[in-house]
């Protein structure tokens, strides 16, 4: 039985004159997401996107799972296609729903007739299909108030569609509609979640990772790649820029006061990220910081690091508890990878007593002891690019 997917767009439909731009972007993203599964027709009509498989051997479970990861879709249904004849609609509905209607369940039928040339009105379609189903399956009962299943019959331009459940989509806005930003990612639990959250608001991602071999290992970098691959299931492909950071970290260790190691390190990371981001067309930076989680994430410390960035720094996790962050990490499947025990650039050189309320003047003065410019330029020149999600 031929199945299609009907995807409902959310906020996208509210975008007034820009609606077409958003919708085209969403269709392009859907196509890109499912093209490896086979050939499809993806078209939009009446604020629904219709995804029709063109090959016989396309796996619709896989397709549904993939569609569920595309931002900009609030809900979707898998539906069967029936010819626009009432008898055919009844027959198809019974065949399509046979599996779930074997059990003792309650149901109701709702119909939408957008093709007004169809000879039966919506209430009549519901009534006829409903009584046919009730006759066919002895175990089911009608319940118009709290049914287990709402069978929806949509009579549209070219065919009728029948489905019994609506699944929540990924929500948000189509990736690309919200500009481009760079996520600073270390390999912990927070940054992949932050990346996912901004992608959800339509932001196209670029990733920046700082590596300090031999203090950090190649496995740590591989872990970050794995995390980004998982995020790219939602955000689409991106570039990862790995910055060689050893020399700078060693210099901080040598020349700066211990209690300021972390804050100076983060300022330098921010400075470097800002430049890489500009070079790659980004308009903002993203970090996974959550207020007060660690010493470098106090208001004072964040103010100190923000000062060196010219572009806005987005921190989608700023008001979230660790528990809430972990829940999202589980949902996007990054939690287990994040917990792999490798040293990252933030955990090496940690001061014993980091300053939680750093004074900007003081930090600036301590930083000025060293000429960082050459080292920053050298690091940026030696950045390694890796393609993620190809």
């Amino acid at each position, binding site marked *: 039985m031929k199945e299609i997917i009907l995807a409902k767009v959310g906020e996208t439909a509210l975008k007034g004159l820009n609606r077409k731009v958003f919708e085209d972007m969403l269709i392009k993203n859907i196509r890109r997401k499912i093209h490896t599964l086979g050939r499809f027709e993806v078209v939009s009509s009446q604020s629904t996107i219709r995804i029709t498989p063109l090959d016989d051997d396309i*796996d619709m*479970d*896989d397709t549904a799972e993939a569609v569920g990861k595309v931002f900009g879709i609030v809900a979707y249904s898998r539906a069967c296609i029936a010819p626009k004849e009432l008898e055919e609609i009844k027959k198809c509905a019974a065949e399509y729903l046979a599996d779930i209607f074997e059990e003792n369940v309650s149901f109701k039928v709702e119909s939408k007739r957008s093709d007004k040339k169809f000879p039966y009105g919506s209430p009549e379609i519901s009534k006829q299909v409903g009584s046919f189903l009730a006759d066919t399956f002895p175990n089911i009962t009608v319940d118009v108030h709290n049914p287990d299943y709402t069978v929806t019959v949509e009579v549209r331009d070219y065919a009728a569609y029948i489905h019994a459940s609506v699944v929540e989509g990924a929500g948000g806005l189509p990736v690309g509609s919200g500009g481009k930003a760079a996520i600073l990612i270390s390999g912990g639990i927070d940054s992949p979640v932050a990346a996912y959250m901004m992608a959800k608001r339509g932001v196209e991602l670029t990733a920046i990772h700082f590596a300090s071999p031999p203090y950090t*290992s*190649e*496995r740590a970098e591989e872990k970050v790649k794995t995390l980004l691959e998982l995020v790219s299931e939602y955000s689409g492909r991106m570039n990862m820029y790995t910055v060689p950071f050893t020399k700078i970290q060693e210099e901080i260790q040598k020349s700066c006061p211990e209690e300021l190691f972390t804050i100076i390190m983060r300022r330098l990371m921010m400075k470097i990220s800002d430049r890489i981001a500009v070079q790659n067309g980004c308009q903002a930076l993203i970090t996974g910081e959550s207020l007060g989680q660690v010493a470098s994430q106090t208001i004072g410390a964040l103010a100190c690091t923000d000062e060196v960035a010219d572009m806005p720094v987005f921190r989608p996790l700023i008001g979230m508890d660790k528990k809430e962050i972990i829940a999202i990490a589980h949902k996007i499947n990054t939690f287990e990878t994040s917990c792999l025990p490798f040293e990252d650039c933030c955990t090496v050189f940690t001061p014993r007593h980091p300053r939680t309320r750093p004074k900007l003047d003081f930090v600036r003065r301590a930083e000025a002891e060293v000429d960082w410019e050459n080292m920053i330029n050298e690091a940026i020149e030696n950045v390694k690019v890796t393609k993620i999600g190809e």
Partner: protein
Amino acid sequence: MEIYLDNSATTKPCKEAIDKMMFVLENVYGNPSSLHKVGFEAEKEITYARKTIAKLLGADTDEIIFTSGGTEANNTAVFGAALARQKTGSRIVTTAVEHSSVYESCQELSRRGFDVVFLEPQSGGNISEEQLSEAIDGNTVLVSVMMVNNETGVKLPVDKIAKIIKKNNAPALFHCDAVQAFGKIPVRPSKIGADLLTVSSHKIHGPKGVGALYIKKGTYIKPLLYGGEQQRKIRPGTEAVPLICGFGAAAENIGSMSENMEKIKELHNYAVETLTGIDGVEINSPGDCLPYILNISAVGVRSETMLHFLESREIYISSGSACAKGKKSHVLTSMGLDAARIDSALRISFSKNSQKSDIDILAQYLREGMDTLVHSK
């Protein structure tokens, strides 16, 4: 020229698998658990293979555990699941037509006090949903049923089992031995609701000595082996890097399953047509079986006699069921075949490399065998 039509016993390793193994043996000698680069290179290689297998199964990489083959994977699944759940119940439901690595593991568990039900195949060599539904009760902790039978190619109703377990409120894990199906038809544990699923390398043109067990995320089973952190402690021991990589390469090289299937269907039909033209040859495989396997009888000539006769002509096939030497096949008996037909059963099994000309030559010598060999009474 030799003609090999015993691909359900094992397949010839493909060039891609051999090349990969040679490369890994020579160049990637590290221990994947070592922290240094040499170790990391080995880890990367097995991770890549794991990804390939996971993708084919529609699973996550951390759901795949490499083992020394199908037998170890089946033992791990059966003992691991039964022992992990022995406090919740004591019944195990399986079939009489399982591969011996499941069958005999269940026999051992029966000796250790489990109440094991071996479902006997009904007409057509298959197990019915009703049988399963009757056997799986609230005390059942494990259901182990194979996807495709190795003797006849019969497809068992594995897609119904998860539903029955749920309906009958059984606290059971569902294990599926998919060794004969993997690489030939889509095998998706999440789709059939399997918690555990076995696949093997050497049936898909990979090396012998390696297989994999799919363990659904969140499913706990007791390990068979102890001593090491590898593979989440479910299967400790330094991974067989070259074999695993060969397995991965073979899996990557399967090609389009639907295209292969078209070709095999054609071969199967051609074989049925050609071989039934020989006096005394009967087809045993039912019409809806996996076309990669064709079970026939050359009535009047004992299986082994015909097998050795064909062998002398460099044609290699198997007697009715390679694993049940000497024993009368349950499957064939259940299909209502008479003794003469069971005694003379032969299994022809194809691979994507099989040719029509192979069948012509097989037919030629099968006919010669039928004409010249002394028929038993």
